[in-house]
């Protein structure tokens, strides 16, 4: 049971960041390989504010999120006008720089030893409720005007601009939202584990999230959530598998990309209407979900 609660918390924290990646990658079609760096910023800033400045935990969370959104704006400003490849290249470089910066500012961050002694004030219920709220917000965003603008930009940026959508603003908003959510995940992580290490936030972690989103289906929030939960649960319960974790991930995703490129769920979303359609007699079923 204790293990289950631990894994559940891990899953919830992952889901918060997966929602951020879904907004960025699934809705807007941009890839960030530096999302984990924003998680690091969230974890370190909130942890430091509580430890060194003695701030209230919730205030520290808010400050950390605002801080990383500010950083995200500085990073995003030059790149949202350009081809989408740039965002992956720049965020990858950003991730490496943040890793270096954490080591360099060792009088604050503890350097290679990590930030020790963050109060463990976040429990499983807190993360669970946060995850549910974040998922609800993301689902709301997907169906809102903003979400539809994002999808338009993803499918064809030029056409979207011709329809009067300010593409660079939409891209920027999506990027900033993703920054906010991943840094929130970082806050949760720091206050659940009680320790923040500088090596936990490499590009592999960002790549993991992208892989999770694609595993379940990049166009479907349900799929992304399923991918995030499944790929976090799996290695925790198969300790023998843990060594081969990345290899199993990669092979699974390669199979999916080669043979079912839309992911497990394709475009299918979990909603009362779709559920009803799924279980209804064959004649009513329509393929366009």
């Amino acid at each position, binding site marked *: 049971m204790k293990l289950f609660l631990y894994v559940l918390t891990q899953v919830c924290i992952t889901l918060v960041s997966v929602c951020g990646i879904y907004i960025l990658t699934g809705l807007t*079609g941009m*890839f960030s*390989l530096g999302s984990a760096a924003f998680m690091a910023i969230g974890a370190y800033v909130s942890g430091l504010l509580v430890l060194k400045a003695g701030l209230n935990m919730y205030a520290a969370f808010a400050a950390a999120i605002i801080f990383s959104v500010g950083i995200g704006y*500085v*990073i995003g*400003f*030059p*790149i949202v*006008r*350009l*081809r*989408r*490849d*740039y965002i*992956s*290249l*720049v965020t*990858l*470089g*950003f991730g*490496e*720089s943040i890793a*270096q*910066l954490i*080591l*360099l500012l060792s009088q604050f961050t503890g350097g290679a030893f990590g930030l020790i002694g963050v109060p463990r004030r976040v429990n499983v219920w807190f993360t669970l409720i946060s995850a549910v709220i974040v998922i609800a917000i993301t689902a709301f965003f997907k169906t809102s005007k903003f979400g539809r603008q994002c999808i338009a930009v993803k499918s064809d*940026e*030029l*056409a979207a601009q011709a329809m009067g959508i300010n593409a660079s603003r939409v891209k920027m908003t999506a990027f900033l939202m993703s920054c906010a959510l991943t840094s929130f995940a970082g806050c949760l992580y720091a206050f659940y584990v009680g320790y923040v290490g500088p090596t936990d936030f*490499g*590009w*592999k972690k960002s*790549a*993991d999230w*992208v*892989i999770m989103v*694609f595993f379940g289906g*990049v166009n479907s929030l349900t799929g992304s959530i399923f991918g995030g939960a499944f790929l976090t649960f799996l290695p925790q319960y198969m300790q023998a598998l843990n*060594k*081969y*974790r*990345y*290899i199993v*991930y*990669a*092979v699974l*995703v*390669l199979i999916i*990309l*080669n*043979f079912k*490129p839309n992911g497990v769920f394709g475009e299918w979303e979990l909603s009362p209407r779709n559920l009803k359609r799924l279980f209804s007699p064959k004649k009513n079923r329509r393929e366009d979900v």
Partner: protein
Amino acid sequence: MSLQILLNGISTGAVYSLIAIGFALVFNILKFSNFSHGATMTASAFIAYFLVASKGWGLAPTLLCSALSGAIIGLIGEFIGFRRILLNHSAPTYFFVSSITLGTLYEGLVTLKTGTNFYVYPNFFDVATVKIFDAVVSKENIIILAISAVALIILAFIIQKTSIGRQIRAVSFDRDTAKLMGINSTLIIQVVFAISGFFGGLAGCFLGIKFTLTSTLGSLVVKGFIASVIGGLGSLTGAVIGAMLLGIMEALFLSLWGSGWATIASFALMLVFLLVRPQGIAGSNVQEKA
């Protein structure tokens, strides 16, 4: 700036340009950023270490083994990661995810063998340094510079003068039209992946000589990415110019502030470049086609 810093910078820049070229070749032909390139470098450097260098054979066999295994890894990657996506005409984003996945796969395989241990290539040179005027330069830097320069010149010759080079340029320009003209574009893409892997293998081996071999060696690929952004995404000449510039700047930052800050400074340099001149030095801006 002393001559020593300049020479070290050019030598580092030469390795970066090998990385950037390998990246830019694939970017040119398939129009996506190949993120498995770093892991290809790591994997081939380790294959060369375990197969050749640990047996005490000199520098040349090690380099050759690393480069060839890079080429083979490139071919395998093209086959398992990109072939079907290409044939299905899926969205370019799938190339991207595929390359990330391949990167994790290679790195996972390397980590399985090596763990997080450090490995060091044996000492290939009897005399560690040479003196050029008043600058003391390590011999490995000179050798690296020379071999990289030769490799780049050969590549330039192949791309500009030979039939296969013309075909590569044609496929980069427009895959479908090239196909209509009778070019076997699948074969050309395979060739490009092999060349890209070859250069990745060379770069991986050089990085292993310059630094130490770890399973995260591939993260240095980010320098190649920065170099190609500075030089102009998708331009081969730009990649080399950007890499040289980055190498020299980094050597300068290194002597001023130390290695950690040098990484951050080169990232800031890239951001400034994107603000001021997003098309890069070479100025070939690859636009998203309508």
